[in-house]
């Protein structure tokens, strides 16, 4: 749920990157952080284990620019992908405005993708959201590796609603900004139709 502060004239929106463990959620945020003008980004915070696996979340605040004098700010979060961190994943989805589902395109990770996708739907429902009503982008990551599932097959499994989707190689940055821009635009387009509650 976006938050409008009329005093500072800001619209703040929350985007969550979701997906199975090691699919590249943190890599997406790291790439955005390193390729964004320092004046437009805040500090990237990673609450990670000693082995650099996400423990709670990664957080990256971005300022995009003004629309009719209102500053637009996006807060990007990742969730911990490992199955046993489900309680943490639920917390991160609170107040979400848009979701990026990051698919690991490797065949051996197909089951993990499916489990994570079902988990996303369940956890959103606990917050009263439906995935098919939220701004969504599906990213097919790791397209540079071997033993991949065809994009068409991944679409049939994870994008039946035909949301915007992108093939990506997050380590190289391919598809990273396309993904972010697409979900951010959907969020802002959606806000035109909505209303604001005090």
């Amino acid at each position, binding site marked *: *749920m*976006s*938050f*409008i*502060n*009329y*005093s*500072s004239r800001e*619209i*703040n929106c*929350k985007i969550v990157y979701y997906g199975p463990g090691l699919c590249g959620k943190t890599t997406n945020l790291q790439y955005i952080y390193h390729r964004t003008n320092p004046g437009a980004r*805040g*500090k990237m*915070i990673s609450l990670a284990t000693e082995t650099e696996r996400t423990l*709670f*979340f990664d*957080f990256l*605040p971005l300022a*995009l*620019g*003004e*629309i*009719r004098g*209102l500053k*637009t700010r996006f*807060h990007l979060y990742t969730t911990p992908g490992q199955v046993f961190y489900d*309680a*943490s994943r*639920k*917390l*991160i989805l*609170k*107040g979400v*405005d848009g979701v990026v589902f990051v698919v690991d395109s490797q065949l051996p990770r197909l089951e993990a993708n499916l489990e994570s996708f079902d988990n996303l739907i369940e956890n959103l429902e606990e917050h009263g959201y*439906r995935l098919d*009503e*939220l701004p969504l982008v599906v990213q097919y990551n790791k397209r540079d590796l071997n033993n991949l599932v065809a994009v068409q097959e991944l679409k049939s499994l994870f994008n039946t609603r035909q949301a915007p989707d992108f093939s990506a190689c997050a380590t190289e940055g391919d598809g990273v900004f396309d993904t972010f*821009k697409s979900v*951010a*635009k959907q*969020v*802002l*387009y*959606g*806000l*035109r*139709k*909505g*209303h*604001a*509650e*005090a």
Partner: protein
Amino acid sequence: MRARSTFIHDEDVQKCRGVCGRLRTASQANAVLLVEGNGQYISGAGETSELDTTSIASLTAASVAAASSLAHLLGEAEFPSMFYEGVSSNLQVTRIAENAILIVVFSKQTSLGLVRLRVRGAIKLLKQIFLESCKRANIASPLSNVSDSEIDQIFD
């Protein structure tokens, strides 16, 4: 589903800022921050320019949400306040309502007892401000008349 937003009026932010300012003085704290429940910084008083308010707001909201889940696991309705003790800086974090959190940053110049005492008074005033704010009628989105191209241009 229509996109939902929450908003806070300039007038209410000014009132909150006044309460935060008085709390800071009365508690002899370094800074007082007011944060929306999902982690967006609303306003504050004191030495806020020296702080990364965006990160503090996000991390505090996450820790409050985690504490709330812990409370439920223990059969408690809520842990409404938390205290973080450091060597030179401390944090007193208090939930004001479902959607707001008050953070007091203080040093050894003052005491936890005084901070908690003054926070209690401030919370009553802030709750009243949020209650009145909630009575305001819903308003159209400030982006309602914005064109696609106006949105697209911020991504160029």
